[in-house]
């Protein structure tokens, strides 16, 4: 008995050494010139693994597409995954991608906390860091010449939220902006805080009454205090920024005390997981400031239908979170830039990116335009849209050029 267990131990240890050793030799061996390597840093483990995985699928679909069409600069494109859930792991994995896997470009990142150290490493090696997802404003304020954010940021989220309230929500309620009573709630990390603070500031500038801004812990087992504090203010609009599991808990707890404000707006609340949690009736009428959703018109976002189709073929379901589309669109822009620059060099891509001037809508599957801010290298034409849950489906409401169907906003919300 002891003998056997000793053998299992030895076998297991050998297996581990084998795996570790193998991975080293394989990656060193395949250092060929025939492909363009793109490293993808995402949280593939930990609590955000699902988001990391779904975001990666966007990269993957874009790469499949370009490889099917003969590749890029005559080479095949290859993705290399790197799993980082915190700053420490981000350093290790970014170093691995650059110094061992010899990637040409790094892209990411669902977590801003991972983006900070990873961009620093990429900067040290002057490798292009192609940011498609992270929202924290200071990622692009580090003065790095190699970090380009092609996706949206907290600033654009907040401004779309405020614009939608002014242009769509207030008229639908038949009130002027100055009469609107608003409670802002947001999860307490940099993602929620940066958006929540900007929303508060801009809504106040418009003259709306922001009654309260409530940060909360997204991992809390109970959010009844947030719900009750919001309810006490009796707001017209309940404006939320958070994740999936705290979002479903908040909505459920509001339902459990029978409270439904006239308008609920969430950031990225068009995830199908919320539909699973609250059902078709529960989500009916809830608005979402989101990455472009999957029902924007083909005219506004050319290629979105093809992407939906290939997603379903490859993964067997409809896309689950909107971030997949964002990384898909972002990767396609990257490929165009590589073609223009005829290189994967960070400086050359930056030069050609700064020259790029694409209007919003009509070019990329996200509907994003491209015009970089020369200082921060943020894309100034990446805007989210306003959507509404109607009959268990996501409908784009605003801006009007993005609206695919003839969906109209339906407000105020009916009770639960």
């Amino acid at each position, binding site marked *: 008995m002891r003998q056997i267990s000793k053998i299992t131990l030895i076998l297991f240890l050998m297996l581990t050494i084998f795996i570790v050793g193998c991975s080293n030799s394989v990656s060193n061996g395949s250092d060929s010139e025939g492909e363009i390597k793109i490293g993808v840093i995402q949280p593939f483990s930990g609590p955000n693994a699902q988001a990391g995985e779904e975001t990666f699928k966007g990269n993957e679909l874009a790469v499949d597409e370009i490889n099917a069409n003969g590749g890029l600069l005559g080479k095949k494109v290859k993705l290399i995954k790197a799993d980082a859930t915190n700053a420490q792991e981000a350093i290790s994995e970014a170093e691995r991608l650059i110094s061992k896997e010899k990637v040409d470009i790094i892209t990411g990142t669902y977590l801003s906390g991972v983006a900070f150290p990873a961009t620093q490493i990429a900067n040290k090696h002057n490798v292009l860091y192609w940011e498609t997802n992270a929202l924290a404003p200071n990622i692009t304020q580090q003065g790095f010449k190699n970090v380009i954010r092609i996706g949206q940021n907290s600033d654009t989220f907040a401004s779309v939220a405020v614009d939608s309230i002014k242009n769509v929500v207030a008229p639908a309620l038949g009130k002027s902006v100055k009469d609107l009573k608003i409670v802002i709630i947001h999860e307490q990390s940099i993602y929620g805080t940066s958006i929540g603070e900007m929303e508060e500031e801009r809504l106040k500038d418009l003259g709306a009454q922001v009654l309260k801004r409530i940060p909360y812990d997204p991992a809390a087992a109970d959010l009844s205090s947030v719900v009750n504090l919001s309810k006490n203010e009796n707001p017209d609009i309940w404006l939320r920024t958070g994740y999936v599991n705290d979002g479903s808990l908040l909505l459920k707890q509001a339902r459990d005390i029978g409270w439904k404000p006239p308008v609920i707006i969430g950031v990225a609340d068009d995830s199908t997981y919320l539909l699973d949690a609250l059902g078709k*009736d529960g989500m009916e009428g809830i608005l979402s400031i989101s990455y472009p959703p999957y029902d924007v018109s083909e005219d506004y976002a050319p290629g979105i239908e093809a992407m939906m189709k290939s997603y379903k073929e490859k993964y067997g379901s409809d896309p689950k979170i909107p971030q997949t589309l964002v990384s898909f669109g972002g990767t396609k822009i990257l490929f165009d830039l590589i073609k223009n620059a005829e290189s994967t060099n960070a400086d050359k891509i930056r030069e050609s990116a700064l020259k790029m001037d694409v209007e919003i809508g009509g070019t990329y599957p996200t509907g994003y335009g491209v015009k970089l801010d020369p200082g921060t290298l943020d894309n100034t034409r990446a805007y989210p849209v306003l959507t509404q849950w109607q009959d268990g489906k996501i409908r784009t409401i605003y801006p009007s050029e993005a609206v695919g169907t003839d969906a109209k906003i339906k407000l105020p919300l009916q009770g639960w």
Partner: protein
Amino acid sequence: MGQIIISGILLGGIYAIVSYGLTLIFGVIRVINFAHGSLLMVGMFMAYYLSKGMNLNIYLMMLIVVPLMFILGVLIQKYLLSKVINEPDMQLFVTFGLLLLFENVMLAVTKGEFFSLDMNMGTIPIGSLVLDWGRLINLVAAIVLAILLLLFLNHTKIGWAIRAVSQNRYAAGIIGLRVERLYILAFGLGSACIGIAAVLLTPIYTIFPHVGFNFVIVSFAVVILGGLGSIPGALAGGMIIGLLESLSGYLIAPELNQIVWYLLFLLVLFFRPAGLFGIAGSEEGGVK
């Protein structure tokens, strides 16, 4: 305000039911079981998949989940923890390993996706106040389970034996109790209690591989606050922490909702380490 107190009591019910399993395991075997939360998560996934797969009411799943969790607990104690029974350090180490293992096996299986039961059980209005069925059922179950466990521990032979071991394992061994087997039983029972909690929480929470993590610290606090191994203590401890969390979230700030019970917990620990319902001095026996 009334609504806040109701929320607090209902939350207390959740914290209490999550802690019974830990009070049995921690109280008897005296191991800091980091895997507690991940066992809860495993139970929730079991309940969810079974309920979806068989298309039956979630609460019926208790009949299957509880025995399965009992077996899982027995296996853990018998084949892992009892191998290091004299090494408290390594027991703790193994439970931490199990925490990582369970979470990440489920992560590898589900790829971290979120699962929710779409179950709107409705609410019960009482005047201007509202209760929800999911948490109310949980609260009633927490009270009933406390009574059942109390009856079991106080009025059955096995219950006496378990209590004897929890009070002094060496003396219990001397009077002829088979300590190792009782440990296995205690872990199994504790795990079964976690199974009950898992079924009751499945309609309330969104399930994903890390859902149990946040219940670990609060469960330890409940168990120590109430008194190690004391079932009524766990119920009371859960209520106190639930109420404090709800009230301080409302009155101070939701960001600080845990700070008051952290402080109360520390105060109790410093002035009455045996906990509110524990026998004074009991904290010194065996806990090292």
